[in-house]
């Protein structure tokens, strides 16, 4: 029992050393160990939003709206392309998640079908009664589109948030159609919501010259209000085609500039967009071309001549600031779909700092209580247990720094709790030793028996708390998850320090003193 193999000793020393080393950056002024390798100590713990202050947004992508849009837009175009390729004409309607297609010439049906399959392979086509076709997005196709949608949204949001100049935002996908955005240190959550939430959906349509904006539009068109107000104070309505010619996704650049002394936004399309733009402007000279942003017509200039270069100017009721903001939105790309907010939490820096201070104070005082108690109750061995406890805390902090686990306020509570529970293992062992001494064992064999007998109990009891802690980590969210993390780490490290570190210290002491009686 007294033999503590050298490799074990070295292992313990190394682990404890690492613990202290990796925990140290949290107490040093920042920048202390810059320039070291990725794995080397130098990283502080990552603080949760409730300690740093910041904003937390959980958004859900409007997949229904998106599906409708792509059916109306790109898939209808696919139908038309297939129809004209087969030399026929197809009338198409959107019904739910599907397109109902009526091909004019029945003998061209098969040709049309194969063309459509080539144009849009992700559609499943079935024949209905009466020679109609029904084209629907398959389950897999739907999932893929939604997935791409979310990915695109994430990159758009990331660019927008980056442009705000905030530090280390967290933007990640949650589940099938949700996005989580966390921006630490952000005071102005309103602006964040505005910049993220604004769809900045820009679409380009032809104005339907034949319909009357104050009457009922035909099936292929819709009435959309504009930014400008008419004489009666209400926004002037425009009757525009539903068909989307170009979208903001074809947009490459947008810059605020001035024209005739008024702020405007100049834009440029990518090569595909420029081609389409060229086609549209060539075939529609003299007609009005509406630019719709977030469901409102910003402007509807007349097409004077074909624009083949792919660039243009948006004129509207802009101020210098709004022209700038719009350019940011357009440059970062249009959000491909609209979002709804599921959850929003923001913690101001005042509360954040208060929480950190409170957490620190409570932990230090709690630790002091426990340290003192152990000495009072177990004397010298209590001191040894205390030393192990200090290493325990260092290990917890070190592990959290290395893993970059997030520390939250409940997480700090978890550390304090672990401090109280960590000594349990030592208490078990020491009580056992006392008993063995009472039963007449010599000091050495009492220590040995104490550790041996108590080991299974320690493992059993810690394992059950570990189950609870792991479940909290799995099912919890936000601050509660942080609690699960620290508790789990804490239990593991306290088992290690209680069993290995205290034992080493006790053995060293035993060897030196060779006492007659145990001071427990």
């Amino acid at each position: 029992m007294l033999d503590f193999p050298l490799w074990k000793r070295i292992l313990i020393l190394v682990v404890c050393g690492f613990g202290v080393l990796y925990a140290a950056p949290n107490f040093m002024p920042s920048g202390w160990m810059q320039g070291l390798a990725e794995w080397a100590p130098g990283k502080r713990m990552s603080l949760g939003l409730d300690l740093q202050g910041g904003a937390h947004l959980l958004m859900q992508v409007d997949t229904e709206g998106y599906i409708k849009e792509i059916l109306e837009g790109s898939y209808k175009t696919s139908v038309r392309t297939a129809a004209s390729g087969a030399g026929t004409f197809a009338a198409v309607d959107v019904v739910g998640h599907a397109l109902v297609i009526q091909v004019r010439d029945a003998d061209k049906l098969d040709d049309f079908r194969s063309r459509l399959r080539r144009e849009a392979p992700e559609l499943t086509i079935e024949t209905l009664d009466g020679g109609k076709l029904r084209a629907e997005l398959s389950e897999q196709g739907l999932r893929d589109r939604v997935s791409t949608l979310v990915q695109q949204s994430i990159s758009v949001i990331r660019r927008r948030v980056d442009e705000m100049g905030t530090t280390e935002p967290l933007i990640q996908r949650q589940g099938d159609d949700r996005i989580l955005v966390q921006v630490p240190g952000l005071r102005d959550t309103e602006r964040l919501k505005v910049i993220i939430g604004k769809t900045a959906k820009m679409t380009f349509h032809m104005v339907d010259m034949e319909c009357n904006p104050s009457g009922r539009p035909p099936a292929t068109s819709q009435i959309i209000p504009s930014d400008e107000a008419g004489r009666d104070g209400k926004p002037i309505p425009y009757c525009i085609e539903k068909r989307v010619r170009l979208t903001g996704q074809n947009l490459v650049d947008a810059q605020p500039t001035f024209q005739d002394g008024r702020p405007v936004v100049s834009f440029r399309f990518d090569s595909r967009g420029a081609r389409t733009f060229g086609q549209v402007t060539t075939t529609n000279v003299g007609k009005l071309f509406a630019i719709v942003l977030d469901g409102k017509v910003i402007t509807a200039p007349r097409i004077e001549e074909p624009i083949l270069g792919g660039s243009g100017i948006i004129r509207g009721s802009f101020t210098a600031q709004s022209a700038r903001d719009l350019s940011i939105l357009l440059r970062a790309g249009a959000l491909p779909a609209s979002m709804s907010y599921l959850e929003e939490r923001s913690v101001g820096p005042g509360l954040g700092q208060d929480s950190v201070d409170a957490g620190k104070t409570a932990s230090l005082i709690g630790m002091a209580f426990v340290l003192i108690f152990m000495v009072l109750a177990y004397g010298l061995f209590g001191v040894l247990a205390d030393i192990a406890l200090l290493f325990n805390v260092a290990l917890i902090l070190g592990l959290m720094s290395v893993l970059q686990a997030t520390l939250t306020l409940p997480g700090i509570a978890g550390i304090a709790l672990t401090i109280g529970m960590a000594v349990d293992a030592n208490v078990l062992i020491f009580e056992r030793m006392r008993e063995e001494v009472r039963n007449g064992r010599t000091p050495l064999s009492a220590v040995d028996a104490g550790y041996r007998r108590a080991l299974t109990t320690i493992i059993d009891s810690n394992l059950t708390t570990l189950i609870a802690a792991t479940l909290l980590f799995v099912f919890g969210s936000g601050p509660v998850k942080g609690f699960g993390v620290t508790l789990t780490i804490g239990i593991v490290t306290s088992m290690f320090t209680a069993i290995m570190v205290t034992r080493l210290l006790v053995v060293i002491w035993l060897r030196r003193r060779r006492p007659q009686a145990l001071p427990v």
Partner: protein
Amino acid sequence: MMLLRMVPADTNIQFVNKRFIALALSAFLVLSSLGLYLSMGLNLGIDFLGGIMLEIKTKGPADIADLRSRVSGLNLGEVSLQEFGQPDVVLIRLQRQEGGDNAQQEAVTKVKQVLGDAVVEYRRTELVGPTVGAELQEAAFLAIVAAIGAILLYIWFRFEWQFGVGAVVALAHDVITTIGLFSLFSLEFNLSTVAAVLTIAGYSINDTVVVFDRVRENMRKFKKMSLPDLFNRSINETLSRTVNTSLTTLLALIALFAFGGEVIRGFTVAMMWGICIGTYSSIALAVPLLLYLNVHRGGEDVEPEAQKAAS
């Protein structure tokens, strides 16, 4: 050197004899907790119900009546305002707004408008939509069920089934009385509370397992001792450890309660109660129940070496 002994060395408290008192007390606690829950319900936080919560700081001590009238005037449904730790910090809660997630946003804007510059600082804002509220409820429920299930499995694996029953009864007792406590004082039941409940579950079993371990060891050692005496002895032997560990954990929790700030106060209170009740249930409930469950002595795999070493 005089050491602090919370529990004298050779106690022989007749726990098992007093079990009827304990069982009666426990039954009372459980029944009254259930009664409280059914009649008064739980003060569910916005984490579960959805809704809006604002923690604000005012200029000087808050005039809660004035703030309340302002917010109530918006007709946004049930409104609750209370002082939160300091006289100039107020917690405002609004019920979930009809109209889905976007309606909540508008409500916050309206409230902020009407509060105007009575508010010096918005320390914390939380909006939880109905979708997320329902999901968090489900997650919390699953977590608790999974925890109890996992723990049961573990005990069943490590001990005889009778021990498992005793452990689960003690655990259920602890969880129910904790919920009763929250119901009684209308403490806010939110995600942190669920975390506390899960931790209490873990701790309670932890405690119970320590006593069970000793019972099992003594059953191997003292084949001739009557069960009540054996149980008594086991409890007394582990008493010192139980008290000390509960004490150290409580010390840490007291520090948290006093200095940890208002945000985690509910959590801390739950934990402190949980430690006390968990200790109590291991001693007064789990072990005496074994008496009624006909635990077998030789039911375990007895290793011959252990027998020799024990005698």
